[in-house]
């Protein structure tokens, strides 16, 4: 039951962010799907007892792979899908929470939370980079093989 609620809410949230970021109308549903799948992977992993940072890295990698596929098939820039897909994973809530603790003079908690924000956003960036690098390697391999065949 919770999974169904999470699926529905994350789909609406990712598609809604697509509207806030003025994504093209026809890509809104795809944005929602990408965001939903990324969030569900994160949710299931954390539910199964995984640490938050590695779960974020894996979910970001899934989002990046899905966005690459979408960008390739629909010939739209990848940033459209990445941005809406990554939003549920982004530690915006924690960033706000950290700022609130700074303002309330609770530096002990605030520094802890800021470190977590840095780790999580670093994790997202690493997840995105990993799949980008993998994509480049795969492409080079395929292109290299085609060239090799042509020569022989």
């Amino acid at each position, binding site marked *: 039951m919770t999974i169904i*609620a*999470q699926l529905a*809410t*994350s789909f*609406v*949230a990712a598609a*809604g*962010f*697509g*509207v*806030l*970021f*003025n*994504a*093209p*109308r026809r890509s809104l549903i795809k944005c929602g799907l990408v965001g939903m799948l990324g*969030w569900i992977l994160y949710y299931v992993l954390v539910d199964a007892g995984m640490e938050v940072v590695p779960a974020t890295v894996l979910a970001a990698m899934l989002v990046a792979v899905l966005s690459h596929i979408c960008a390739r098939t629909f*010939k*739209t*820039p990848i*940033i*459209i899908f990445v*941005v809406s897909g*990554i*939003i*549920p994973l*982004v*530690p*915006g*809530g924690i*960033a*706000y*929470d*950290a*700022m*609130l603790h*700074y*303002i*309330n003079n609770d530096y002990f908690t605030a520094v802890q939370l800021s470190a977590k*924000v840095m780790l999580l*956003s*670093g994790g*997202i*960036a*690493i997840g*995105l*980079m990993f799949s980008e690098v993998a994509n480049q390697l795969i492409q080079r391999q395929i292109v290299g093989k085609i060239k090799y065949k042509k020569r022989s």
Partner: protein
Amino acid sequence: MNMDISIAKVCMLAGKIMLESGAETYRVEDTMNRIAVSYGLSNAQSYATPTGIIFSVDRVEKTNFIRISRRSTDLHKIAEVNSISRQLTGNELVLSEALLLLEEVDQAKLAFAGWIQVIAAAFVAGCFTIMFGGTWTDFIPALLTGGIGYAVMLWFAQLVETRFIAEFVAALVIGVLATFFIYNGMGAEMDKIIIGAVMPLVPGLHITNAVRDLMAGHLVAGVSKGVEAILTAFAIGAGIAVAFAIF
């Protein structure tokens, strides 16, 4: 020579639209270089930061500069510019046509009207409350709080030039509304309602983009975007804190 000028114009305009719409700096430089290369300018130099673009068609030619003062996120424009640059490099468009098309994109209004954005923000707020472990009793208060907060942000952003003030006021309104709902018995957890409601305002995209730019070696762009994100988070945190201080 005239040809060079119009190529530079197309490149600069494309870069300007993309930066104003929130594209990553390395993508902006890449697009400008691609357009230049497709017209045989193999030594075109471009340097983009969040606040300005520098471009010259060759190493020792005249250098052009554009200042970027307004920044928002508009993925629709990025997609449009991308398709124009694809057509240009694929030789399906003449330079003058591309210039006209780009000017049209530059003048275009937002793809979604304000009230649609407010409704979307309301649903985003409600859904994030559930996603972060809130109960369904918190859904309606978070939906209302988030929607009203975003509407206040949009309205204030038109009145005042400084974006941080708009975010501060929106966060203040969110804090006041959340306390109001809790005191009147609607909703269970104030924390969950507030976190959901501020999500449409929070600079999550900026934080991730900053780290990506830093990792790609764009140190200036990465640091300045990071500072922008921290300032926004500060404005939101301060707004909520002031709301708490009042009650």
